[in-house]
């Protein structure tokens, strides 16, 4: 890929729809097929293998018998139902640069919605902070995309986080097997969040967790004294940047490690994404991961 435009550059496109389109069109051009696939338990029929498809799709038993490359088709193979969960708690409003975590998450969510709708998959959205604030059930129409994009454009950061509880509630509402993409900074009690993930997995959701972080959260710099105020609770603390950096780095590493371990156990995709990372690169990471799994 040629040099990717940075997030600030993309963020200069104020309209979320155009922004998402700009990102996705740049990406999809290089892709043959969407990586997002649905799931089916029922065999439908064989079809010929198409050049360019992954060779693993070939049913080799059939080939052994027929000496023809054939691919199994399942019921509902193309009918993916995805729900994008976006954390809009106050902490998501943090930014050390131009783009806040929330803006970044919105852009990612918009891009993902674009990709899914364009490949005729159903996509829904759940926006939450300490409560589920907005829920848009999955649909695959262009109107759905517009609805999602306009909802994304509209909301701002809210109150404190209760991430785990909300995910749990969303999972309760899901009837059908599908995919859940969580966009959050996960700055809540890990046990609650993991409980939510477990519920999603229980509901046969292919879960992708994108932990959004600001570069400053990932490493304080400078040699100054800081009066740090919690955006959610309003509490204040005074520390020098070295101590702040040491403790935060240690804390967040441990925090992320918990999620990594849990993700491994629950077979969840877990990615830490910095708001400094180009959108296409972030999306490609997700997409490449999806491809390897299939």
């Amino acid at each position, binding site marked *: 890929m040629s040099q990717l435009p940075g997030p600030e550059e993309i963020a200069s496109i104020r309209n979320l729809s155009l922004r998402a389109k700009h990102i996705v069109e740049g990406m999809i051009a290089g892709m043959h097929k969407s990586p997002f696939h649905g799931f089916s338990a029922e065999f439908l029929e064989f079809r010929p293998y198409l050049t360019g498809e992954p060779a693993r799709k070939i049913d080799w038993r059939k080939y052994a018998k027929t000496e023809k490359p054939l691919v199994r088709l399942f019921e509902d193979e193309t009918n993916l139902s995805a729900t994008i969960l976006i954390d809009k708690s106050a*902490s998501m409003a943090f930014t050390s640069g131009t783009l806040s*975590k929330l803006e970044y998450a919105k852009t990612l969510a918009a891009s993902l919605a674009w990709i899914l709708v364009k490949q005729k998959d159903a996509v829904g959205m759940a926006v939450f902070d300490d409560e589920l604030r907005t829920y848009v059930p999955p649909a695959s129409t262009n109107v759905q995309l517009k609805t999602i994009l306009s909802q994304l454009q509209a909301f701002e950061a809210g109150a404190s986080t209760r991430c785990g509880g909300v995910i749990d509630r969303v999972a309760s509402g899901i009837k059908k097997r599908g995919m859940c993409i969580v966009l959050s900074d996960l700055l809540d009690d890990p046990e609650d969040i993991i409980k939510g993930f477990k519920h999603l997995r229980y509901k046969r959701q292919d879960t992708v967790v994108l932990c959004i972080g600001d570069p400053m959260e990932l490493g304080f710099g*400078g040699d100054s004294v800081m*009066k740090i105020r919690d955006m959610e609770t309003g509490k204040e*603390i*005074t520390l020098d940047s*070295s*101590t702040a950096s*040491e*403790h935060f780095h240690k804390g967040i590493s441990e925090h992320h490690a918990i999620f990594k371990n849990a993700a491994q156990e629950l077979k969840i995709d877990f990615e830490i994404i910095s708001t400094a990372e180009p959108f296409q690169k972030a999306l490609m990471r997700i997409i490449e991961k999806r491809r390897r799994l299939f």
Partner: protein
Amino acid sequence: MSFFEPLYIWGLLAIAALIAVHFLRKRKVQRLEFSTLRFFSTSAVRTSRLRNLKKILLFLARALIVIAIVALFAGIHNKDNPLHILHNPGTTVYTWIDPSISMEYVEDDFSLGERATSVLDSVLQIIPSSVLHYHYNDISGEFVLERNFNSDTYRSRFGSSGLEHAVREFKQTADENDILMLISDFQQNTLKQLESVKDILSAQSLLIAVSTAPKDPFNYSVRVHSVEEGESTVYATIYAMGKKLDSGLVTVEIDGMRVGEKNVSVEKDDSVRIAIQISPDLLQNKGKVRLFAEDPFSYDNTDFFSKSEKSNQGVLIIGNTHDNRVIASALKSARNSRWSPIVVKSGSEVTSGDIREAHLIIVNSLDEPSRPLDLLLSNKTFPEKSVLYCLDPLANDLQLLPSARQIVSQHGGQNLSELHDDNGTHPVIPDTTLGLWRGFPKTVSDNARVFRYLTNLEGRALLNTSNNNTLISSFTEPQGRRWVLCATPLGITDHNNLYQTGFYVPLIDRIARYALLSVLQEDDRWYAGVSRMNPFFGEENGAEIYTANGRMLHRWHTQPSVMIEKPGIYTLKQDGEAHKPLVVTYNPEDADFTYDSFDSEGNILFKESEQFISAISELRNNVWSFGIWILLSSLLVAELFLWGKTSTKPTSKK
């Protein structure tokens, strides 16, 4: 508290730089709205506060390091102890150790000289190696730079300590802020020298006088008094200063052989005169008397004698030969007379050789000018000869001798006037306690009369008239010549009838002996290490001095003053003359173990050697000396520790 180099105090400005850097680097408190505080526990706050504290401590440590370094460079010290100046790395120390023989006094198995070198060694150990040290060289009379002082090079000698010269040399060569250290036993004569020169030093120079005087000094000594050939007896006096001599042995040695001995006991601070008889056939020209006793100073336990010098004294009588023959007769007939040869000559006949041969010159009834006499009296020749000058009341003689006129005018009085009393006045002894008159037959002579004499004679009165005029007086010139002046002639004369009385012979003998006294006991004695006027200076021929074993020591001719370094019996070989023994004895001043001290004042510090050693030991262990180094080391360790703890770099995550 004071500083050797106060200019370095400006270095404290570096602290201002530190403060400036500290405040410049200190940033404003940043306010930050952050996503969460969940990862900042109380320990983070504690850690942050500790880091802040360490930064402040680091700053303080660095400031103290600057202060300590400045203090080291500036040379901080306690100015209340003047000895602290010895710690000034930029100073120069001049040292002098008393070389006089009294430093050989032994106390507690160490001589005073050894103690002095030990004191100097102690000082050199504590002063910084950058301090320049000059030590006085007694031979060259100069201060010489010493890189490594060797105490073995110290040597004592007879003679004056030379302190005065050393101080003057210091004044000439040293800078104002330099230090002069004098280490001596400070005998009275040395102390007098110090008193005489201390004021020439500048107020900035520090003079440290360290005394090595013994605590309870005592000394036994022997002095040969006379050798009576007729009696084959050697007379000596034994002295006991400071302690009783319970039992001592005095021996007489001639040619290395003991020829007589005597046991002696002397009370404390007293003296005893002893006589040791020798077999006549053993009594030679020269020998020595030795005292054997437990004595801390043994250099005065031996004295030397030479028979010929003590037994015969030549007299030269210059003037009218007719008038003066009675003087010669009186001397010859004096009891136990030792006057020989007695030469009577007129003014025109007398020669330099006559003067040289005589011990005593008597001038009486001078009626002719005399060039050799004029030279003698004007101190151009034979300054050691004593003169008995009998004044003519009519002052005719003074017209003939300008030198005599000058001497008489200067010392005998300027208001001399003739007094004529037809009835005459009696001579009266003014002070019978005077050794001169001890045992004299009569204090007043009834039949002796003086009819014409000069009044207002000045000087020390030896004989008066019954109307309280001084008849005979004496004075000693600064150059050393003793004069005896008589206000009336002593030969055949109309001015008195002294020569016709029984008073005359003992008078002449006593006066003549008194005139010679200084010569015999002082001026005629040669003291080791003491310079004297060269008796051959200006003479046609010089003389050579030989040691007892025949080695030539000196040649005396054109030098104004001469000296022999050590006591002993030497041989004087004068060109064209017979050889004579020359006895050189110890100077009683060298063996005078009376000590004084003086209080420290101004820039002069006086300390006993033990006090001084304690003071400089205290100096070595003083906190000002090494405390700053300990402080500096501690601060540097603290700096390393604190810097390591505070220089943690903030971690960053990708």
